């Protein structure tokens, strides 16, 4: 099912949680709403599920306007962070419950629930209570319960944040597998960029209720729309050095060292950030851009070097045969990719 969001605004008293949000989500995709806490992603999800109604704007499921439609008529399945399983019912009863409300005959109910349980791999524990299951198993049951009524849209609200690190990776792959097997359009809310990058078809990155960028995960990383997007994605985080534009060149730090990065059509004197990914630094002794090594740490397959560039400590993966010493002066230059120039105030991207 295709979802169209048009100029959604949600205000709580004076507080604007979502501001002029427009996006189209294609049928059968898994789209992640990503952002730091308080960015309005859960509010957005609640408006999609019908728990909240937007203050302004329209929500369309295919061609139906569902903006003010109540939850039960929307045909959405919802999975919560705390699973929200009914503790007094068995796994089977939990999965059957949405069908029970729909007054599906008992035999058919159990048949469908069992099929769902097989899909999420909990078919061996149908008679257990949720309290007797591990977190990952509870999450699987919650997904089965959300899917059993064959929803048009599956909504997952931070479904992995209560799990430990290893289970989280396993469950996110499971969610992706289940989503691909059923082909249900899915919206996944998380604050974890790695989670979002690994399973999504598209990511919507939000900040303070405003959509920042809506793109494929790799584009989001390679072509951030603004400074916030670049800062938010990537591990280790992107390096940021203050600079100023003069004659199309980006000059770094108080001494205005030439970074060798060029921008077009930016007026002289514009304060900017030069942001670059750690993998975009190249060691080059002949380069006029000098830096001083602070620390090198071996991270298994690669070596990460911290160095001071224009007064700021930054990090880069260095391919060096020579071992770098503390306080050693090195020359560096940047690759073509993974290097961006942002306006220091507006965050607007120049390069």
């Amino acid at each position, binding site marked *: 099912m295709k979802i169209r969001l048009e100029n959604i605004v949600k205000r709580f008293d004076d507080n604007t949680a979502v501001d002029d949000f427009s996006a189209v989500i294609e049928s059968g995709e898994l789209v992640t709403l990503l952002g730091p806490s308080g960015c309005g992603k859960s509010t957005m999800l609640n408006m999609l*599920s*019908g*728990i909240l109604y937007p203050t302004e704007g329209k929500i369309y499921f295919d061609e139906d306007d569902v903006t003010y439609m109540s*939850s*039960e*008529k*929307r045909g*959405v*399945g*919802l999975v*919560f*962070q*705390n*699973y*929200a399983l*009914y*503790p*007094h*019912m068995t796994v089977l009863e939990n999965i059957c*419950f*949405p069908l029970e*409300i*729909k007054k599906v005959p008992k035999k058919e109910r159990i048949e469908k629930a069992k099929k769902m349980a097989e899909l999420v791999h909990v078919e061996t524990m149908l008679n257990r209570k949720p*309290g007797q299951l591990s977190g990952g198993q509870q999450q699987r049951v919650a997904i089965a*319960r959300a899917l059993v*009524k064959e929803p048009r849209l599956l909504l997952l609200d931070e479904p992995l944040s209560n799990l430990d690190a290893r289970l989280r990776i396993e469950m996110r792959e499971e969610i992706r597998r289940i989503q691909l097997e059923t082909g249900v359009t899915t919206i996944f809310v998380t604050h974890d960029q790695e989670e979002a990058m690994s399973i999504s078809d598209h990511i919507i990155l939000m900040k303070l209720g405003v959509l920042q960028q809506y793109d494929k995960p790799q584009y989001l990383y390679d072509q951030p729309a603004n400074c916030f997007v670049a800062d938010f994605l990537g591990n280790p985080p992107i390096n940021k050095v203050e600079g100023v534009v003069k004659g199309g060149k980006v000059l770094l730090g108080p001494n205005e060292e030439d970074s060798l990065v060029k921008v077009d059509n930016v007026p002289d004197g514009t304060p900017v950030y030069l942001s670059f990914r750690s993998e975009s630094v190249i060691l080059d002794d002949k380069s006029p851009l000098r830096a001083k090594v602070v620390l090198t740490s071996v991270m298994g397959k690669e070596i990460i070097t911290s160095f001071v560039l224009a007064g700021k400590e930054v990090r880069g993966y260095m391919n060096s045969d020579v071992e770098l010493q503390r306080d050693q002066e090195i020359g560096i230059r940047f690759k073509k990719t993974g290097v961006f120039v942002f306006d220091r105030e507006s965050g607007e991207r120049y390069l």
Partner: protein
Amino acid sequence: MSNKSRNTETNSDRHIVKEPISFGRILTYVVLFAGAIIMIFPFYWMITGAFKTYQEVNLIPPTLFPSNPFNLENFIYAFKTAPFGRYFINSVLALLGCITTCSFTTILAAYAFSRLRFPGRELVFSLLLSLMMVPYEMIIITNYRTIVQWKLHDTIWALILPFMSSIFYTYILKGFFDSVPESLYQAAKVDGCSDWKYLWRVMVPMAKSSLATIILLNSIATWNSFLWPMIATNSKDVRTLPFGLYAFMTEGGQRNERMMAASTIVVIPMIIIFLFARKYIISGMSRGGIKG
């Protein structure tokens, strides 16, 4: 496998044996034992007294055990002179009437105050709570006037009507309902579950032990209630056991062994219920959040 578990068993046994029997421990048990004797002895005295003859009851020094433990004369006398059977039925009727209606209204009210959103919810609830400070004896007067005006005095309805709802039990149950995560409600709502169905299918089964506590406390209170039945009822046909016992005492003269028999008849059902359901009294009261 079995070998292994046996090993751990012996280990823990050894652990217990090793622990020295301290003076504090002995003292604790002595105090507990004394307390238990003090609590149990009146009941023991009552029950054994019911089997004694008039002469034996007044013996000095008293006998600790009735000489004829199958002497049912006192019970027969009690049942003959006062209609304890009728009293018992009345008590049971009042009890059933009170706990069914009160539990029902309590569940609905607790749910409304906990989950439904309506203007003035907090205000109404705090007003109700403040009513708990009004002493019971004061309400009795107005209740009596109402009952008389409705011409319901001296009927079973007079024993049920004033106790069809309870602020205190509503407060306890609301506390439990509040601890149920909101997401359960939202999950049910998204599936199209109505409030009514959610309440009876999810909330009430989850609140089983809180409800058991409420029903139990309510049963004890209703069974033992004395002042109101004495005021609201007159005739033998609608008397409940505690008031009937009182009437038996004043009407039957100072025959201790007969009073003991009558008292035993009154108390036994409650003791039986308590023995079966005592764990709920504690667990329901102390039960707060649930594991999510």
